Structure formats: C-alpha cells, structure tokens
C-alpha cells in the first residue's frame, strides 16, 4: 500500500502540469537490478551468505545512484529517490532479518522485494519515461 500510495502520488503529480521530464534510470540502476535479482537467486539456492553480500552490494549501488541525482531538481528525480529509498529501507530490514529469520520466510520476503523492484523498473521505464 505504501508503494501504491507513492505510485498514485506520482500519477497525480505528472498530470498536474507540463514539467515532467522523466525518471533518470541510468545504467547503474539496471546493474543494481541485476545484483538484486542475483541476490534473490542465491537465497533460492540456500546460499545465504552470498545473498547477504549481494544485498549489501545492491544497497551500495543504490547509494551511488542517489549521489548522482539531485532530489529537488525535477519531480521525476524526487520520485526516483522516494521509490528507491523506500525499497532500499525494506531491503536493509530484510538483510538484518536474514541473520535470524527462518530461511523460507526470508525467501518469501526477498521474492516480494524483487517483484516490487521489477514493478518499479517497469514503471520508470514504460510509464515514467514515455
């Protein structure tokens, strides 16, 4: 619901005026997406430590993306930060939980995070940058 709310906020914001300039989804974001999906794959295969490392790498990569984006410069920038920041927070929590949560539970959560990220990348690419 959180991401649904942000999605609707973005749809409304875009409809308000002609100043929408798209969402900056550069190569680093795509690379990070691959890292996240790899992390999920490791978890599916039961390789928890590798999943944790890749998850941390994903977060580092996101931080690098954010450094290159000025949040207030355009609405697209703002929403990229909000969406990916919220997602990253959830990933952070998931990484922490990997330490003590039962593996099946972590797998389910990771699938949710991966699915959510795929949705976000599709949203950015096909709706945000149309």
């Amino acid at each position, binding site marked *: 619901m959180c991401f649904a709310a*942000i999605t609707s906020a973005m749809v409304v914001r875009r409809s308000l005026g002609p100043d929408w300039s798209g969402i900056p989804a550069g190569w680093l974001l795509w690379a990070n997406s691959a890292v996240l999906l790899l992390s999920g794959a490791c978890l599916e295969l039961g390789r928890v430590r590798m999943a944790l490392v890749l998850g941390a790498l994903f977060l580092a990569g996101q931080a690098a993306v954010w450094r290159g984006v000025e949040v*207030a410069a355009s609405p697209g920038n703002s929403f990229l930060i*909000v969406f990916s920041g919220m997602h990253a927070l959830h990933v952070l929590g998931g990484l922490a939980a990997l330490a003590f949560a039962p593996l099946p539970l972590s797998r389910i959560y990771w699938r949710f995070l991966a699915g959510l990220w795929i949705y976000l990348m599709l949203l950015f690419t096909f709706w945000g940058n149309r």
Partner: protein
Amino acid sequence: MSANAPRSFLRRWIFSTDHKVIGLQYYFLALFSALTGMVLSVLMRFHLVYPDARVRLFEWLWPAGASGGIMTPELYLSLMTMHGTIMVFFVLTAAPQSGFGNYLIPLQISAEDMAFPRLNMLSFWTTFLALMVMLAAFFVPGGAPLGGWTAYPPLSAVGEIAGPGQGLGMDLWLVSIALFSIGSLMGSINFIATLADLRAPGMGLMSMPLTCWGWFSTAMISLLAFAVLIPAGLLLLLDRNLGTSFFLPEGLVVNDRVLPYKGGSPILFQHLFWFFGHPEVYIIILPGMGMISTVLSVFSGKEVFGRKAMIYAMVAIAFVGFLVWGHHMFVSGMSPYSSMAFSLVTMAVGVPSAIKTFNWIGTIWGGRLRLEPPMLYALGFLSLFVSGGITGIFLGQPALDIYFHDTYFVVGHFHMIMGVAAVFALFAGTSYWFPLIFGRMMNPSLSRIHFYLTFIGVYMIFVPMHLTGFAGQPRRYPDFKEFEFMKDLAILHKFMTHSAFTTAAAQLIFVLNLFWSAWKGRPAPPNPWGAKTREWTP
C-alpha cells in the same frame, strides 16, 4: 507462566515478550497519554474563555509562548495540535487495539501467546519511542508544531516562517508519526497471523468472539491505512527539508519571500492523509464495538442479537471505510463530482453502523439486565454513539457540509464518537476485564460515580459545541475577539469550559479507582460476571 519464565525484573516486566505484559504496557502508555491530552484540552478551554488572563504557570512553562503569562496564538495552536495528535494516536489507536487486543486475543482463542512475541515487544517499544519523540517536540527550540493533527501543507511545509513550532518541532512530529506507523504495522501483522492461524482447534472464524472480530478487522485496515500515512509524512518531510515540491506549487509568497517550489499540489497531501485518516477512525471504534457487544450480551444474559450480522457489519465498515475519505475534502477544491461519489458511499457506510446499533438494542431487549459498572458504560456508549453518529448524516452531505466544514459542529461530531463513545468502550472494557487482569474488583461505587459524572459532563461539553457549530463558528481559532457574531456564543463557551474542568476532574476518580483497586480491591472470584468466553473459563 511457563517453567522457562525469565526471572530478571527487566526481562519480566520491561522487555517482555509476554502478550499480557505488552498489553498492559500499551494500556498504561495510553492512560498516560490520555491524561496528558486531557491537560492540554483543559488549557485550551481555559484560554478560549480567558484569553487575556495572566497565568504565572504558563509563563514558567512557556517563557516564549506565554510571555507575561498570556497564552499566545502560537502556543494555543500548538497545544491544540498536540492534543489531537496524542489523543488520536497514543490513546485511541493504542489502547483499544494494542492494549486490550494483545492481552485478550490469546486468552480468547486458547493460544499460548501471539504469533510473533518478539515482534510484539518490538512494536510496543517502537510505539514508546514514538511517544518520546512526540513529547520531545514540546521541549525543543520553537516548541511543538501548530498546524493541527492534520498538518496540511503548505502551512506545515514552509517551516519556521509559519510559526515557531513549525521548525524542529514539526520534523519531530513527523518522525514520531512515522515510528508510530511502523509500530502499528508490526502489531497488525501479529494480530492477523495470530487470529488467522492460532485459533483453538474447532474455532472457525465465524465462531470467534466478536471482540476478536473487532481486533481482526481493525488489524487488516490498520495494515493498509498506516502504509499510506508513511509516504504522506515522508513526502512532507522531503518538501520541508530537501526542497522537493510534492505538495507545494509555484509562486508561494510567505513573509514577503518568494519560495522556490514548483508544480506540487496541496490537495495531494489531503488525499494521502485522509486515505489513512478515515480508516483510522474505524481503527479507533471497531475494537470498542466488539467490547460493547460483549458487555451488553453478558449483562443481559443473552447472546448478541444477530451475531452473524454483527460480524458482517464490522467487515463492511472496515472495507467500505476505505472508500469515503473524500468527505473530509468536500470544499477542498477537489472535483465536485468526486464529492458526490464520496457522499453516496459515506451514506452507505452509515448503514452497517446503524445495523449494529439496532442489534445492540436487540441484545438488551428482553434481557435480564444487571447494571454493573461495565454495563453502565456500555449503555452510555449506546447513547453517545447514536448522538455522534447522527451528526455524521449532516456532515456526509456536501450540500450541508458547505456550511459545517471546519466549524465546531465537526469538532463536536468527532469528539462525541471518538473522544467520548470510544472512551466509554475503554471504560467498559477496563471495568469488565479488571478482575481477570488483576484478580480484584474495581470499586463499584467509585465506578458508578465516575460514570454518572462523565456521562452528564460530556453532554454538557459537547452539546453546546454543536450549537456554536449551528451558528457557524470556525474551529481552530485561538480567540473570538475579532468577530461580532461570536459574541453571542461566549456564554456557551463559558459553559463548555466549566463543564470541561469538572469532567476532567472526575476522571481522577477513574484513575484513583484503577490504581487503588489493583492494589487493594476486593479479591475477585474467577468469573465474577458469568461470562462464557474462554478468557474467563480456560
């Protein structure tokens, strides 16, 4: 307690994973918050009728906000903001659901504990942290925020130029709400998992007690609603601190400064906020409805009338409650066509509440009434719920709300339903389950006196408030000196203030009764009320 029960005081009573301890922690957090919120409201009511009074205490507490002992508008507005926030979140969202729910759910469904005891403990301490952050707003430079608990931008977004509390105080408020929301989400997950999975064998969903249905439906809407409040607060925090323009349009001129925002919409915030805000009021009332059904049934010696309908009504309220948020925004600049749609659905959501009211009366009809204190509160609830609900019929129509919006009529309405009816459900629940929790009875004479003083007192406070609403008096005014038409209402305000003083004082009877009886009350038999649910007859 099991054989492996932790021995240290810290693990048994502070960082406990025992649902009973956690339930009591939430309850007493809410009680403390209620007394704080009540003091704030007494201060507000005092100022409204004695705006020029010099009070040494004010000057000592707030040298900037009350220099010379006279309460400034900014101080009044910040007291008002904090009153609403503390009451709505830390009392009415915490106690009925997390307080009573945590204590009673495992007992009522014969489970050992909630599904995730450690998550439960985390959720309480997150809520506690949220309260600390909220209270901290009083103590930072500039003080507490002053935009109302609804915190509409641009007022809430432009920072200190809107008023002293709108600097750090407002940021702390937002952080607190975010923490509270996270605590709520954790609690909701726990409640849903527990009620879905840990019911005793043979207890189908439909045979779950009505109290559990109240907590179940509340947890489900809580999960969805708080998840929307978080982005609303986050986007506001970003607008305030990182220069984004989610809610702020171009061309704002505040204090002679042109602000650099571009392209945002203030109404967007209202949509996000009220999408949470309306389900929130059902989060507040649904557990209470379950508790009232229980009390009315036990003290009438009858099953709840139309039990199945009661369950369907609760679920309907929970579901349809998500579709009516626009009735807070009829005059906001939102499309008037949307207003019509929201109005229709708002009328529809009144129907299950009406059904519940009829069924409550049906429950006591032909019953064998025993007017023990819990029953007094429950009967009082019926009167208050009808009174508060009926004014909703006025407000839910844009044709009438076009006058009533942002008047004291609205303030009267929501206080009757939340501030009074929901609280009477808490009083009923407290006196009803007290013997179970503490093994002692609350003093019945004190309870009766408290009931009568409070029941009369709240009508004396809030009926005149509706009358000032008829006269069109706007809300959130620190004083009434500017307007001719408000002079005639001064006598009503005096009456309300003195009634508020008395009613507030009467609450001390409840608090005294609570603590004294827990320590020295008459020892209670195992099932003093003759109830049939499992917490009494394990």
